[in-house]
């Protein structure tokens, strides 16, 4: 009887460990499948036909059709530069250095991957639209209410978690296999300005 209890217990723990670790590595990635820098995370072989099983599972779950990394790179952030979740009740200041690529775009979504309704129909800034400063850097403010320079509205709905995606098309530096190289330290910094 006791042996049966042990056995069921063992099985239950194994189930939690197995599913939990699989979920974590598919949802969040690991150093094997993703490159991380500060708040930004990029799946290295997303969309690649030779991708590993974790990347494939991640892709199938996401319902997206990303371009392979030799054409475009995608960087996702759901926290600020200090690791706190992006939240629509807070105002954030995003400061980025020029990226050496043909085109880039920074877009804001809710945690489900949907664009956020706002009266100015502004959902993203790309390399052609963002107002730059004289040194080529760009400053984007995420907030509920209008801000000068580049304002990316958080919408007026209930407070929610936010996700940022930086798409980089045609990076001019590539590695030996043609994968676009974006110097990770040039990725935008996301600073929380205030909450509430």
């Amino acid at each position, binding site marked *: 009887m006791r042996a049966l209890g042990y056995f069921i217990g063992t099985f239950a723990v194994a189930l939690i460990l197995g599913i939990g670790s699989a979920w974590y590595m598919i949802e969040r990635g690991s150093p094997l499948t993703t490159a991380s820098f500060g708040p930004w995370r990029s799946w290295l072989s997303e969309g690649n036909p030779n*991708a590993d099983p974790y990347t494939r599972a991640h892709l199938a779950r996401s319902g997206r059709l990303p371009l392979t990394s030799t054409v475009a790179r995608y960087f996702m952030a759901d926290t600020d530069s200090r690791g706190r979740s992006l939240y629509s009740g807070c105002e954030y200041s995003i400061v980025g250095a020029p990226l050496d690529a043909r085109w880039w775009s920074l877009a804001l979504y809710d945690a489900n991957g949907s*664009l956020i309704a706002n009266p100015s129909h502004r959902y993203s800034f790309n390399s052609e639209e963002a107002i730059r400063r004289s040194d080529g850097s760009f400053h984007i403010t995420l907030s509920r209410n209008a801000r000068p320079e580049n304002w990316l509205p958080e919408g007026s709905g209930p407070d929610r978690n936010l996700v940022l995606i930086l798409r980089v098309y045609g990076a001019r530096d590539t590695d030996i296999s043609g994968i676009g190289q974006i110097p990770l330290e040039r990725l935008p910094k996301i600073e929380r300005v205030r909450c509430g």
Partner: protein
Amino acid sequence: MRVRLPGLYIALCVVLAGVIHVVAVLTLPMLAPRDAQARLAALGPANTMIQLPPPAPGHQVMPLMAPDIRYAVCRYDLSKGPVRLKARIADGLWVIAFYTPLGENYYAIVGADMKQPNLDLIVATKDQDVAEVGVDSPEAFDNVVVVTSPAVEGIAMIRAPLSGPSRSAEAEHALKSAYCGPHKGSS
């Protein structure tokens, strides 16, 4: 025995957890019900170019679509023969990407790398002989790109990133002329 027993259970637990982990990771791509192929199948028939509505709140075919890219999609089915795809690439930023039903991007053409703006290509499986179908002389094929699809079904997607704030209408208009259909009779 009393000493060895917990160790045995721990070992069993680790092995079982490993097996469950591997099975979960490998089966998930097949179990995901709302993958991109399923979402696009809901939009219309195969072998037709379908322009996706501009991504807007509540109007996204797939999650995390770029609000400043315009998309056109052809879900192809090669079971009745090769499929022809034609488009006028209006901008060097455009990307034409080919996917397996599982979302693997097996081939992509970047507008900036093209020698001339008119894209003419045939998608076929590796068993299908493209030259025999509907064309008299091989010379007519000089500007035709043949894309070998690893599967009978797949997705061709044209992306038109907007190169400026008011380029939306222009990109949508340019995408309208993109064609996708059975290879026979299209040339």
